[in-house]
Every structure is written in C-alpha cells, then in structure tokens.
C-alpha cells in the first residue's frame, strides 16, 4: 500500500473513531455524579454491619471476599511463573560483592528503609480503620526491603529477605485466605462469611475476619513484590 493510501485510510478511520469518542463523551454522566446504587447502600450499612471505618476494606475482604481470593491467586500465579522462568540454581556460585556507589545514594537510601517499612506496616495494620489495607500497605513494605538493595547493600538485603522466608510468607499469606474461608464453612457459615466476633468499631480489635484477611493479604503482597523484584535483581547480579 502506498504512503498516500495509508494516510487516507488513517484519516478516514481516525475521523470515525474521533466521532465515536465525542458521541460517547456526550453521553457520560456529569462530573461527580455517581450512579452505583450498590455503592451507596454499602456506604450506609458497612459501618454498622461489619464494624469498620474503611468501607473499601469491608467490600474487598468481606462483601466481595471471593473476588479478592481470585485476585490473590492471580498475583500468586504471576509470581510463581516469573520464579519458574528466571530462578536457577545460583546458590553454589560465589555471592557477588556490593558495588561501590556514592555515599549520598547509600545514606539517603538507607535512611528511607525504616520509614518506608513502618509506613507499609502502618497502612496494613490500619487497613479496616483508615484508607489503605493489605494490598496498599504490602507494596511500601516490599519497597522498603528493596531500598536496602538500591542503597548498595546487596548482602544486607539478602540477609533481610532470605529466599526460604519469602517463599514461606507468600504461600502462608495465600493459604491463610483459603483457610479462613474453610474455617467459616466448618463454623456453619458460608465460605468466607464473617463469623468472628466483630469487636468495637474504630479500634484495632474490630471487623472480624476482615482483619485476618487484610493481614494475610499484606503478607502475601509484600512477599510477592519482593519475590518478583528479587528474580530481576538476581538476573543483574549474576551476569551470564
């Protein structure tokens, strides 16, 4: 196809696409006009029904808990696939030495490790009280661990996140969610039904199984992100 013909084809289809987009835009609801009835209902009832002050967590770990189980397994499968493809028997070779980096990178990187991990753990622990949760808190926690490597301390990073611990944390985190579901069945409820005592709203001891599932998710996400980045780090640290 000649250049002119291709341009003509693009101009034609581009105009049609632009017209369709404009037509679609004019049909959108006004800014800030939320039409999800289900969302309004949950906003009203979640606080009294599940003793949470963060409705998002109640939806993720309770009302839609089964969906979260699926998401958890998607993450698990993705990390396992990366590990299967990239992981080799590297342990017999000599551990690489830390590369010399600038003192500024080391100082800033290492001073950020503590605050980042604490922020992550805080966001996980208060998942059902304030904005955040296992997913949102797991990522900063993992990033804090990775910062040790970024600050040029490969050995310290390996000591802080040994392979066996990461593997175990990932497995335990995902398995705990299934275990909570089965425990609810054994207690006479439905799968993943919130059968535990709901406690006092607004305190750390509240929300029943949401708290357990939230913590398990935090563990699984932290381990997943570290495992994922770990495989990439190893690829760089052990050149073929």
């Amino acid at each position, binding site marked *: 196809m000649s250049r002119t013909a291709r341009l003509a084809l693009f101009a034609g289809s581009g105009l049609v696409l632009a017209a369709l987009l404009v037509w679609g835009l004019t049909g959108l609801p006004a800014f*800030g006009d939320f039409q999800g009835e289900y969302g309004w209902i949950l906003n009203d009832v979640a606080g009294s029904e599940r003793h949470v002050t963060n409705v998002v967590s109640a939806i993720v770990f309770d009302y839609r808990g089964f969906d979260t189980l699926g998401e958890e397994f998607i993450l698990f499968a993705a990390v396992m696939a990366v590990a299967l493809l990239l992981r080799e028997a590297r342990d017999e070779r000599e551990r690489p030495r830390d590369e010399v980096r600038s003192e500024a990178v080391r100082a800033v990187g290492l001073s950020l490790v503590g605050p980042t991990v604490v922020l992550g753990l805080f*966001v996980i622990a208060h998942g059902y009280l304030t904005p*955040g949760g296992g997913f*949102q808190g797991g990522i900063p926690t993992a*990033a804090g661990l990775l910062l040790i490597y970024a600050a040029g301390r490969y050995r310290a990073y390996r000591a802080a996140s040994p392979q066996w611990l990461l593997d175990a944390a990932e497995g335990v985190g995902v398995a705990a969610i299934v275990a909570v579901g089965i425990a609810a069945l054994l207690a006479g409820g439905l799968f993943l039904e919130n059968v535990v005592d709901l406690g006092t709203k607004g305190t750390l001891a509240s929300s029943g199984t949401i708290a357990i599932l939230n913590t398990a998710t935090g563990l699984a996400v932290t381990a997943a992100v570290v495992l*994922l980045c770990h495989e990439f780090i190893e690829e760089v640290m052990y*050149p073929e």
Partner: protein
Amino acid sequence: MIPLQLVAITLVGLGGLAVVTTRDPLRQVLVLGLYGLALAVLFVVFQAPDVAISELVVSSVAAPFIFLAALAKLRGRRRE
C-alpha cells in the same frame, strides 16, 4: 471540579504525552516515574489516598526497578 483537580488532570495528560514522546528507554523510565507521581497527586485530590500510596510506590519504586534491571541486563549483553 475544583481548580486543583483540573491542574492534576492536566499534569497527568501532559505526563502521558511526555512518556510516549520520550524515545530513549532509560529516560523513559524516569519520565514514567514522574508520570506516576502526577497520577498519585491526581488520586489524592480526588480523595483516594490509599490508591495514591500504591501508585506512588508502584510507579516510582517497583516499576522503574524492574525496567532498570532489564535495561542493565540488555546493556551487559550488548557489550559482550
């Protein structure tokens, strides 16, 4: 829509444009990090602080980490 939200949306639009117009992969990773920062600001001004935390860490730590590792690996191979 308050002015702050308009500013955030504009920044995200410009950031997205900057990411696709940057051709050098190494620079693109850094621009992508800045774009993520703009997205995090957008989430904060639209009252989704939890999403903002995740976005901030994913786009400024985790994603650049993986991209930079891949780039370092590719450069090492090219040199051989």
